[in-house]
């Protein structure tokens, strides 16, 4: 199946970055090729030109003018802030309690039982109502973002840590190393994600880190494939050939040309994957294989209250469901926006919208 990759992926690329942190890290690598576009059909291989920061300004400008993407970014930002500041974050070790984050936006301790009556509908005191043990749903939904968001971020980050190096090695070294790595990817790809995750959780047991592990084991595959494909195509690009001819070392070529180009599409995919991973964790929770049922993770809350619709306690699942929906939708909007912002052809207004999503589908199709 890897065989097909270059074809299926031909002419697709994705780029990254609106966050200042990404920008900073890339500023060090001044070699941001002007053309992120490598559609070979259009043979636009101007080479490693335009290392300018104006590129980033362009990207930011384009992203900024995309209202839905901004909305998505705002929702993600708000949910993240709410999650972080919902309740104090403390670490207790060796008898000391270290408060990392002292603020509490949530009106109640999300884990505290009987702060109100049980199964009460929304009221002034409890805007989202309370659950079976009288816990405040509003506080739980706020704090619940911590689990969902951190699982999403962690699982994707770790999957990147595994998938990107392996994919890069496969793509750059080639030969039997490539064959071996990609065969492993193919084999694991044959197992649908949830089926594999169920099997993994059945072996490892439940819990936060096990869920993350299951998501990583099934998540790195797409990055490996993606980065390998990118590298294969960059390797053939004229500017790389030229650099080689000029006697640039492999290391230099990788650092200055291959990495910046290949990293960009990965980041778009990673953004979108955060959404998928959050949904996947929720599905595991629904099957009773996710986090421990007392945790305020949105999917687990949904699973815990799944009989409640029939019992007339609609509020128990509606609010965490909406939070989950809003977050995944928002992160997808951001991903789409990034895609467009990083798409050079966007410059002519016509094709701009036309290409929205061309990366994302590519991204999604390798999600599982």
């Amino acid at each position, binding site marked *: 199946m890897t065989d097909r990759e270059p074809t299926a992926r031909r002419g697709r690329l994705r780029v990254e970055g609106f966050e200042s942190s990404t920008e900073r890290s890339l500023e060090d690598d001044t070699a941001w090729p002007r053309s992120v576009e490598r559609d070979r059909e259009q043979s636009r291989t101007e080479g490693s030109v335009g290392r300018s920061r104006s590129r980033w300004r362009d990207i930011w400008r384009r992203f900024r003018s995309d209202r839905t993407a901004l909305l998505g970014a705002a929702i993600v930002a708000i949910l993240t802030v709410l999650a972080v500041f919902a309740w104090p974050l403390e670490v207790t070790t060796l008898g000391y309690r270290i408060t990392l984050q002292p603020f509490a936006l949530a009106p109640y301790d999300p884990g505290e039982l009987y702060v109100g009556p049980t199964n009460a509908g929304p009221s002034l005191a409890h805007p989202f109502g309370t659950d079976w043990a009288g816990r405040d749903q509003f506080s739980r939904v706020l704090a619940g973002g911590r689990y969902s968001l951190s699982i999403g971020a962690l699982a994707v980050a770790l999957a990147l840590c595994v998938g990107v190096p392996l994919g890069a090695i496969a793509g750059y070294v080639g030969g039997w190393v490539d064959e071996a790595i990609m*065969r*492993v990817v193919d084999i694991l790809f*044959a197992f*649908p994600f949830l089926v594999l995750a169920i099997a993994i959780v059945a072996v490892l047991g439940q819990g936060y880190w096990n869920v993350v592990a299951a998501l990583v084991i099934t998540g790195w595959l797409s990055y490996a494939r993606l980065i390998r494909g990118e590298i294969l195509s960059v390797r053939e690009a004229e500017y790389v050939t030229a650099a080689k001819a000029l006697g640039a070392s492999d290391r230099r070529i990788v650092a200055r040309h291959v990495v910046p180009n290949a990293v960009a599409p990965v980041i778009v995919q990673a953004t979108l994957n955060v959404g998928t991973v959050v949904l996947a964790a929720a599905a595991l929770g629904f099957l009773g294989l996710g986090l421990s049922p007392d945790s305020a993770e949105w999917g687990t809350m949904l699973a815990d209250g799944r009989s409640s619709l029939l019992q007339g306690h609609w509020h128990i699942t509606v609010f965490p469901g909406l939070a989950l929906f809003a977050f995944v939708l928002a992160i997808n909007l951001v991903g789409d926006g990034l895609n467009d912002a990083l798409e050079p052809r966007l410059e002519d207004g016509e094709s701009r*919208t036309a290409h*929205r999503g*061309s990366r994302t589908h590519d991204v999604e199709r390798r999600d599982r």
Partner: protein
Amino acid sequence: MSLGTYALRRTLLAVPVLVGVSAITFSFVHLVPGDAIDVLAGFQGVDPEARDALREEYGLDDPIWRQYLAWVTDVLALEFGESPITGRDVGATIAERLPRTLALGVAAWLLSLAIGIPAGIVAALNHGRPADELTRLGALAGIATPNFWLGLVLLFIFGVHLGWVRVTPPDAGLASLEMLWFMVLPTITLGTASAALITRLLRASMARELQKAYVRTARAKGLRERTVVLKHVLRNSLTAVVTVAGLQLAILVDGAVVVEQVFAWPGMGQLVVDAVDQRDVPLIQASVLVIAVAVVLANLLVDLVYAALDPRVRYR
């Protein structure tokens, strides 16, 4: 490279993948914590005599590669053995469940095409306009909705509240009208994400296709827009939809695991979950293997179809 050579090469490439898939599946017995005999006996506390019999039957004293070969030989003959929990033939159990998941999967796939293709066309032809934005947001919403939640809500509204459909499968044949009616909700639940995927895919690939020179030429030549779009652009864009068929299969299986749980649909997804609950390892092995092989074969088929449609593929 001729299509035949390509097909042969591509098929041969699937062999190591199948070997790997079977090796992983085989290793479940040894990965699950506990003595392999207990695992195979379904943790039923059997007496020493039966243990010895099991040890003999599965050749547990043999080197691992021989155990694997013996297992693969059986599997190739579609001999999956007996479940230690139910005492029933594993192959027969799967044969009972597989058509259910296939039916649901095919229905969901057809639905996703029926929604995704027109929506994708409309979006691509109207890009930048509200219809496009709406389609895009709709597709994103489809992706962002947790399928189990969607299933429960649909079940509650249309099954319990309005009483339009049953909440559990009727006692009727798979092809009966009653059953088809019941399948509407699970199909929608399962097909939503796939439909969203196809919409986005088709919209993007059509938009790209519309930019190409031949379209401008065709338009310049005065061909009717309808002809241009349907005869040329759509045809070329649909190959992109074909390429994701294999991936969609995996997505549908994932969805089925959850959707079957919600709608009490006795398919492979439910079988896997039940088997994990009961620690019925031979059944887990067989069902996971069947699913994985189906995915591998689907991908193989997709590549061959794709190669037949687009000769350029063969040379890459």
